[in-house]
């Protein structure tokens, strides 16, 4: 990444461009942060003054907190399923020669490509047709499908860089294939699985497009945030929580990145 090119390029101009773009990318997020500590309920200039009130009021806003807890549960469950299933597919794809490999791979990453609105209404149709009421479970099922490709790609990348001869050696020494997977393969891919789990978790936690169709009466945080957008006086509290959640998400992602690097 750091190999210097043996020719002159106008790096200073590009550096300025990079900084400008970063400023533009962070400006809208910074404005939200400003909203969370602004004393007025409408975000407009001039600002009304600095306050931590919105954060303090969070503890009284049970509906907001409830929706965040809902999201937490959905994300924890769906990311677990996505990671387990994604790891299984990754193991099969990298370790077993079989026909139909391309089909299994295609099927597993296709949820990334199918538009969320299409998958959302299709799942809605499925649940309605079988008389399954909408709930956090239905949201979690949807999220497990769209998070699976992420988990698959992360674990596959790790398995591809891991010498299959280790497994062959174990099996030559008399270990059965399940034992080899348990004793040799799994310990080696645990960091990748943890990273996959954290990624799937954040994917689910932020997901709105599917959840809007699949959430019943108990909303996830993004769905609740969306429903509150037209009530200006309730917004600052929502934004305050969103700011806290954003910081938590970023912390999780940096952790995932660090785990992945450590391997």
């Amino acid at each position: 990444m750091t190999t210097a090119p043996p020719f002159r390029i106008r790096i200073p101009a590009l550096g300025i461009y990079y900084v400008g773009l970063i400023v533009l990318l962070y400006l809208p997020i910074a404005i939200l942060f400003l909203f969370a500590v602004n004393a007025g309920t409408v975000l407009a200039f001039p600002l009304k003054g600095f306050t931590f009130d919105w954060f303090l009021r969070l503890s009284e806003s049970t509906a907001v907190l409830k929706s965040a807890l809902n999201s937490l549960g959905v994300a924890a469950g769906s990311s677990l399923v996505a990671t387990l299933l994604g790891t299984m597919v990754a193991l099969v794809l990298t370790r077993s020669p079989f026909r139909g490999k391309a089909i299994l791979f295609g099927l597993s990453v296709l949820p990334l490509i199918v538009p969320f609105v299409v998958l959302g209404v299709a799942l809605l149709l499925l649940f309605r047709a079988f008389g399954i009421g909408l709930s956090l479970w239905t949201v979690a099922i949807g999220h497990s499908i769209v998070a699976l490709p992420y988990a698959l790609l992360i674990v596959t990348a790790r398995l591809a860089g891991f010498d299959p001869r280790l497994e062959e050696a174990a099996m030559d020494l008399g270990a059965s294939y399940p034992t080899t997977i348990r004793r040799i393969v799994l310990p080696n891919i645990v960091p990748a699985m943890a990273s996959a789990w954290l990624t799937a978790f954040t994917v689910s936690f932020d997901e709105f497009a599917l959840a809007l169709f699949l959430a019943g009466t108990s909303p996830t945080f993004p769905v609740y945030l969306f429903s509150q957008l037209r009530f200006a006086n309730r917004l600052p509290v929502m934004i305050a929580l969103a700011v806290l959640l954003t910081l938590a998400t970023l912390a999780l992602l940096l952790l995932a990145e660090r785990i992945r690097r450590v391997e």
Partner: protein
Amino acid sequence: MLDRRPTFWALTLPPLVWLGAFFLTPLAMMAAFSTRPDLRGRLMDPWVPSLHQYEVLLSVPSYGRLLAISAGLAFVVALCATVLAYPVAYYLAFRKGRRTGTLLILLLLPFWTSYLLRVTAWKFILGSSGVLNSLLLYLGWIREPIEALLYNRQAVAITLVYVWIPFAALPILAALQRLDPSLLEAAADLGAPPVRRFLRIVLPLSLPGVLGTFFMVFIPTVGEYVTPLLVGGSRGSLYGNIIQDFFTKAANWPFGSALSMVMLVTTLALLAVAVRVVDLRRFIE
């Protein structure tokens, strides 16, 4: 090998069953449901398959037009995001010194903050009593708020470009990092000036990454419905929004299913084109 067989199935069956039940079955049911001619009876009452919904869809030109508009908007968004991300990828690929990894993470972090929140931020920025208007009023640069900023397709396009830029840099960066520096050295030794080296070596060799970025932004954006919902208003709605409308407000699920099928087929067709174009480039390489 005998030992492997049960393990193979133990590993393959659970994902297959799960994806079959909650990914393929819903899509297949939607395909079946789109052949339902009317709304009579309960959801799963048997029906005689017909192409009635597709006939309606084709007879009303505004649906096709909206799909074309959505594809056009996605095309422009993908083009802008790719062009804007290229210099950043170039900078990160060739800059000297350490901390390049940190600079990359700094670029990617916004992509991992809540999507809904970033789109919402633009609603606050562009609104008639929003940040931009109130700032301009406060500074005395305008007399009354500019209404035209929010609730149109431009607002949707701007927001989407903003959302995609961090991600768009990744495939280009990967392509640039694979570039062999000795090629540039050779070109310089043979007297090629910098602009020529860029146009004849760097740009062609980074083309797979550029095309990768373009399609990775273009394809999902065609089916986008959340951003238009928030910053598009009624004038800025896209094809995805009418699908949503037919499943919620209008509650005409068979017609909504037909609209969805058209969306799905369009997406898969674009994917087929993308796979061909990007792979072809690799092949030439």
